[in-house]
């Protein structure tokens, strides 16, 4: 009996459906972004009356900004790579005590968000009022020891708080190296140092290079640190310049859009380069066996290295938190407060601020929604791109990875216009933020889930097929149960990313849809730094509690190994 494929199978329906959703989410705003960039007519009139490339000339009016962006991004990338490499080497190749704990802790700066880091380091390193400088002067020094409001100050904060991705990538490279390669060198009599320089380093370099490009692209689009630290001294980078151009009066929307598009082009190119290198070298794999790298016994050096790790965590976690606490408890924050300067007033006021309370609730709700919907959407997308054999899956992968190349702020710009004209009244509501988050987190979510998905042997699903299971049956009984640990990890990741999101939210927040991180920024710009510190601490505490609860709950789910 002949049996032909039905017109459209469940598999195809799900596949194309989810791909269409992704395409709309991503491309619809991008269209508006490009439209704004090419609009040379009257900015008040929509739709645009004239198209042209004149706006791009506007960018060259600000060569200083381009230079600044480059300086900061390069400096931050170099610093992040150094931190990342050193920490990766210490934590994966040496027997420093507490290795596994430290590896987990390396993620904490990411959770704290660069915004918090910038706030704290601003309190620490402002040339006049910074605590470190006050201590320096008290010890007899002149002027200031550090000035955080400079390019290197900004780069320092960026590297500390956004650089943990460099650590993760380099550590992954080190872990995926076959120890036999180094052992062969040592067996032939090479010293440990020589082995490291002649064998380890060259093997690791392509992976590090890939990480460098990736990190550089991220730094180009970085916003929070430059906003808090750069604006006072009028040190603009492209992202803060775009923000400024949009917010100032009169706004220069078209030039901002053109800048955004240019930045996007550069980032796109960088990411393209990154993929080339990673694919070509294939030194880092997510499917391959993870080797157990040989851990070197460094003797008493262990304690020195332990000190290095602690120092890093101090700079990135301990010091910022303590500083914020210290500042929040004073009327006017100084390094050596008098007894009269202590107060709980800041916390009292912070608790009553409408924006604080509703922003917290909104953020938690939004994060919950984003993570839950996101996991389903991105899980399906990951499956479509990497597992199904639907035609056009390569194209879908490009669409999904698109938002990676666009800085959040720039993307939000397109989102703002796109959904403003949309017939459904989602503008100014949490729904708009939800859509925005789902869109900008597509690369993150899909990549995470894909990583787990690809580790699952295809034959597990094929076998279910051979047992006669239809696509829906085997997805339900085999694929999803195996994915659960990965899906849970992705859920948590999306939850956190959603809470710490700044670039998109700051443009899309409405009166009824305030969220945490941008409201901290708003507070920074319009209230005292002490009040802002109190606000930031309250929110960090609540989020940390939420995370602990969630991790405890999800720990029980998906505890079994995959193979």
């Amino acid at each position: 009996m002949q049996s032909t494929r039905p017109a459209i199978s469940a598999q195809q329906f799900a596949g194309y459906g989810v791909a269409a959703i992704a395409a709309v989410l991503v491309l619809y705003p991008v269209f508006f972004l490009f439209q704004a960039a090419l609009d040379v007519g009257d900015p008040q009139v929509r739709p645009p009356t004239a198209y042209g490339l004149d706006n791009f000339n506007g960018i060259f009016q600000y060569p200083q900004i381009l230079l600044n962006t480059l300086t900061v991004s390069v400096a931050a990338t170099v610093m992040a790579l150094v931190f990342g490499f050193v920490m990766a080497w210490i934590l994966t190749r040496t027997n420093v005590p507490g290795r596994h704990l430290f590896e987990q802790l390396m993620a904490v700066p990411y959770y704290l968000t660069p915004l918090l880091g910038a706030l704290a380091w601003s309190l620490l390193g402002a040339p006049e009022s910074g605590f470190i400088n006050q201590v320096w002067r008290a010890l007899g020094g002149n002027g200031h020891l550090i000035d955080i409001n400079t390019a290197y100050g900004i780069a320092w904060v960026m590297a500390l708080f956004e650089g943990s991705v460099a650590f993760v990538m380099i550590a992954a490279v080190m872990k995926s190296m076959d120890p036999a390669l180094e052992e062969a060198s040592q067996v032939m009599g090479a010293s440990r140092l020589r082995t490291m320089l002649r064998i380890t380093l060259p093997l690791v370099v392509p992976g590090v290079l890939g990480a460098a490009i990736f990190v550089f692209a991220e730094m180009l689009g970085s916003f929070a640190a430059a906003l808090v630290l750069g604006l006072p001294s009028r040190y603009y980078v492209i992202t803060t310049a775009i923000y400024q151009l949009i917010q100032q009066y009169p706004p220069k929307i078209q030039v901002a859009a053109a800048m955004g598009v240019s930045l996007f082009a550069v980032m796109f190119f960088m990411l393209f380069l990154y993929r080339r290198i990673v694919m070509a070298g294939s030194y880092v794999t997510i499917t391959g066996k993870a080797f157990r790298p040989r851990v070197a016994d460094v003797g008493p050096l262990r304690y020195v290295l332990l000190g290095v790790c602690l120092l890093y965590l101090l700079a990135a976690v301990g010091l910022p938190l303590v500083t914020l606490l210290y500042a929040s408890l004073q009327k006017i924050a100084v390094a050596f407060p008098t007894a009269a300067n202590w107060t709980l007033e800041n916390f009292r006021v912070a608790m009553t601020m409408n924006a604080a309370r509703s922003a917290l609730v909104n953020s938690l709700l939004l994060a919950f929604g984003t993570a839950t919907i996101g996991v389903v959407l991105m899980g399906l997308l990951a499956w479509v791109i990497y597992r199904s054999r639907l035609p056009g899956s390569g194209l879908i992968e490009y669409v999904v990875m698109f938002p990676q190349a666009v800085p959040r702020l720039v993307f939000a710009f397109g989102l703002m216009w796109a959904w403003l004209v949309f017939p459904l009244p989602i503008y100014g509501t949490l729904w708009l933020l939800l859509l925005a988050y789902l869109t900008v987190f597509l690369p993150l979510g899909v990549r995470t889930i894909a990583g787990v998905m690809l580790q699952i042997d295809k034959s597990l699903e094929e076998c279910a097929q051979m047992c006669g299971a239809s696509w829906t049956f085997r997805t339900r009984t085999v694929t999803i149960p195996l994915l659960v640990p990965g899906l849970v990890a992705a859920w948590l990741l999306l939850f956190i990313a959603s809470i710490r999101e700044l670039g998109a939210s700051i443009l899309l927040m409405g009166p009824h849809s305030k969220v945490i991180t941008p409201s901290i920024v708003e507070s920074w710009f319009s209230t005292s730094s002490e009040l802002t510190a109190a606000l930031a601490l309250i929110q960090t505490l609540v989020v940390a509690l939420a995370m602990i609860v969630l991790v405890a709950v999800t720990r029980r789910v998906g505890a079994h190994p995959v193979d």
Partner: protein
Amino acid sequence: MGNSKKPDVTRRTILKAGVAMPLLGIAAPAVLAQAPLKSPTKVLDFMTYADVAKAEQEGQLVFYCHENEPGTAGIMEGFRKDFPKINTSYVRAQTGALYTKILSERSAGRFDVDVIQLSDLAPAVDFQKKGGYEFYVSPETPAYKADHLSSPAGSFFWTGVDPAGIAYNSTKVSAADAPKTWQDILNPRWKGSISCKISASGLQFVQWYTLRKLYGAGFWKEFAKQNPHAFDSRVQLFDRLAKGDDLITAIGEYPAYILFKDKGAKVEFVAPADGLPATPLIVGAVSKAPHPEAAKLFVDWAMSKRGQAWYQTNPNLYYGSVRTDAPPMPTGVRLGDLKLLYPADWDDYAANRDVFAKEWNGMLGL
């Protein structure tokens, strides 16, 4: 809901108006937004044409304001205290950005705002021309001079005045070195340690315009050489001043000075003899508002003695009231005691907006 009518359309209703017209002294007659006319009702201790019951039923007030966060929250707190059944929510952005936002929303067909407060007369007049304001003549209108109302009255009013002088950090700057006149801010000793506001600020525009008129276009060009730090809110300016991050600020707003002095900051205020540039703070109900009765109620509340007292005494506001029967400010100073500098020709002022923005942004790097 509600539509803005041209002044000459409903002359009939003028005659029916129970408003004491002569007190207004306005050339063009005012009109009521809706006919037929009703008499004002008394709520708490002020008069209103709004239907209070309906306003409470609407249950919401959406307020767009230029003030810093605690300031805006403070205004809302005041209204909510008196009308607890009305939930308030606000959007806060500096005047330039705020105005852009509301315009782009309206051009896309979104009408989500009930009342708007701006710190610059120019966009207010522009908004009025565009029919953005709801025409509503409050019964509290007689308490205000014509100069402090829209022309014709009914679009907006001056809810307060924010004057600015010079302020400095008294621990780092001795009394001898302290600035005394406006020319003193050009002293090279302040280079890199002086602050001002961003171009979106209404007050900064007024200062630019008025001092330019006084001292010529070269004044601000000299100022640019000082490499000033620019910020969005007066709180930031005084925060830095108090901590010593800046030595002086070229636009020390009197309300902020009072606030920080209370906190124990070591700052001092200087009122140069030539005068203090001041900007009106403009409040008006917006047309096509989602909660029109609440909007009108708010306008009446803000114009009333009660509302003005709140504006004048809330620590995050400390505005000077222009109500003819207003008491002095908490420090005992009356607005009339200060020599305030306003633009003489508001139209010329408005026309110079772009010139200011270009020059100011150029100075600040964008």
